[in-house]
């Protein structure tokens, strides 16, 4: 296993399109790092630069202390799992698993084996070792019974396991995953997510994972790298990314349903003025400078209250029942809001209700769509 370092790495395509702005990233040995962001944010390009499938135009990438900018993908000792599996369709599952190992054999010549006894026995030993490694990986992933089949005879989940096995069997320094679960159905995706997590714990391997699914990122990663328009927005643990988003983009991208935002301004009395309402700021934010700013409140940080003190009057547009909780979609003078709460009787579409942000649930951002988070006092 190995650590991976990205120093001042950037990527500009031939036509001058800047795909990834300069970034520094240090991935520790055995860490599960998730690159997450919307389509076109540069996460896959970053992963492909680490894999050696894209040329690095700025900076250096090191794997285990060795700069690999000009090293062929096959010499970087990494394994990659692709979004569409990329299994060789003309080979059996066993063939797919062993192909990478076969290509790395030091005694591949059958002809030389006919004349050189030492070479022959080394060759035999090599083949035995490959067979054992393939069987071990297949056992780990529960695909032993599929070894003789072709990819076209497998279900999506089975193909994904084979793709994982192909990476696993090589015992590489780092595993790279490019949205490997996005082609699976929702149920299988959740199952595979858990298996990946267990696999990571068993192997203790360095894993770099790309996804656009923030839920997948939150559940899998030791740390997340949130990217937008080729720029790293925040690098932190899932908990901190959720609780202390670096800016409004991160706040809106992470968490479902998305965070509610009110654009207004803070007056000299530390009250937030928005759409004719005057809300007092939580104690932690009282020292924030006066002027325009954006307040963000997660749907689960809005409480239904009966008194109008510091509350936002709303009317319920729709109620989405989710089993152990409900999402209220509401209209208000500050715009459309979402409130997540426990199911309760007596709520109906069209009802007028009062919502109040919890003390701890209020985030302040600089004005604008990518406004930075204002720290608490």
């Amino acid at each position, binding site marked *: 296993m190995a650590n991976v370092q990205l120093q001042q790495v950037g990527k500009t395509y031939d036509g001058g399109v800047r795909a990834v702005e300069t970034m520094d990233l240090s991935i520790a040995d055995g860490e599960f790092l998730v690159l997450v962001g919307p389509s076109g944010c540069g996460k896959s390009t970053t992963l492909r630069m680490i*894999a*050696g*499938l894209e040329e690095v135009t700025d900076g250096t990438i090191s794997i285990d202390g060795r700069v690999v900018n000009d090293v*062929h*993908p*096959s010499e970087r000792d*990494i*394994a*990659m799992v*692709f*979004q*569409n*599996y*990329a*299994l*060789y*369709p*003309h080979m059996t599952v066993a063939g797919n698993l062993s*192909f*990478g190992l076969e*290509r*790395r054999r030091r005694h591949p010549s059958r002809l030389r084996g006919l004349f050189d006894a030492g070479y022959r026995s080394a060759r035999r030993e090599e083949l035995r070792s490959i067979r054992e490694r393939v069987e071990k990986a297949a056992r780990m992933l529960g695909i032993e019974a599929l070894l003789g089949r*072709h*990819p*076209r*005879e*497998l279900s*999506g989940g089975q*193909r994904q396991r084979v793709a994982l096995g*192909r990476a696993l069997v090589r015992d590489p320094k780092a595993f790279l995953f490019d949205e490997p679960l996005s*082609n699976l159905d929702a149920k299988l995706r959740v199952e595979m997510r858990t298996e990946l997590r267990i696999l990571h714990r068993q192997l203790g391997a360095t894993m770099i994972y790309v996804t656009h699914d923030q839920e997948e990122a939150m559940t899998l990663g030791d740390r997340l790298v949130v990217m937008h328009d080729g720029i790293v927005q925040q690098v932190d643990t899932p908990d901190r990314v959720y609780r202390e988003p670096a800016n409004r983009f991160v706040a809106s991208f992470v968490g479902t349903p998305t965070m509610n935002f009110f654009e207004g301004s803070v007056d000299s009395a530390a009250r937030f003025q928005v759409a004719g309402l005057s809300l007092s700021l939580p104690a932690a934010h009282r020292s924030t400078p006066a002027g325009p700013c954006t307040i963000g409140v997660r749907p689960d940080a809005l409480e239904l209250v009966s008194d109008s003190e510091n509350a936002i009057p709303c009317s319920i547009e729709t109620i989405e029942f989710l089993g152990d909780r409900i999402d209220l979609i509401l209209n208000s003078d500050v715009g459309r809001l979402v409130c997540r709460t426990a199911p309760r009787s007596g709520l109906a579409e069209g009802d007028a209700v009062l919502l109040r942000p919890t003390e701890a649930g209020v985030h302040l951002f600089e004005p604008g769509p990518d406004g930075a988070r204002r720290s608490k006092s």
Partner: protein
Amino acid sequence: MRSSRSNPVWYLPVSIGALLMLFPIWWMLVVSLKTEADAKQSMSSGEMLQVLPGNPQWGNYAQAVSEVGTEPVTGFLDALANSIVVTVLVVAATILSSSLVATAFARIRFRGRNGFFILMLATMMLPAQVTMIPLFLFFRSLGWVDTLLPLVVPAFFGSAFFIFMYRQFIAQIPESLFEAARIDRCGWFEIWWRIVLPLSRPVTAITAVFTFIFVWNDFMTPLIYLHSEEQATIAVALNSFRTQFSGIEDVHLLMALSVVTMVPCIVLFFAAQRHFIEGLGSGAVKG
């Protein structure tokens, strides 16, 4: 829901078309089994619809084979061997060279790639007759006239049509397969040999059948370059047979030999037709 294509009415025009296509083959087969007199009579009467003779002359085939060239039987075997050597080499060379060039055009980024590709396509617009004489002079200067080399060697440089076909097919193979192969320590040559060629079986089948039929039946090229009887291919031998027996006199023997000549093409076609419709790519990626 029942497809409109499964309606029997659709089969009528298709069946008529098939019968029209089969008619010359049937005519050839029937005439090949007639006696010399019957064959002569049906030719002179211009009778088109033929029925299988009550007493088929299977001996016509043995006689036709034994009367090719100046040496009995060996003349035919020589021509057959020459045709097999030329056809097998040309088919193999066309498949290997065309798929290799197509891999480069489809997957390797290099300066002027599109320009070279268009230039290559443009060569398809040159009629064969335009290059016939310069090529003959070129091969003569190499001392290759009356050898099989001018028939075989050009195939090692690819065929524009098949390069185009392979390129279109290879461009459809997901990029991730090539990337996976690169990570698995394959260079471009190995990617071509281990990934592209096995996946391109449908195109290879078409290339093999088309090239086989074209080369097997090619009359003009062997006629230009091969002068001696020992070098003649089947198509040339067939022609010498016809003139040797003053044309229509021995039409039953000519037809018998034509049937023999046609058999490999038919066998190959049926053997390879499964691959025309079979896409090996299924299962490679999600879908």
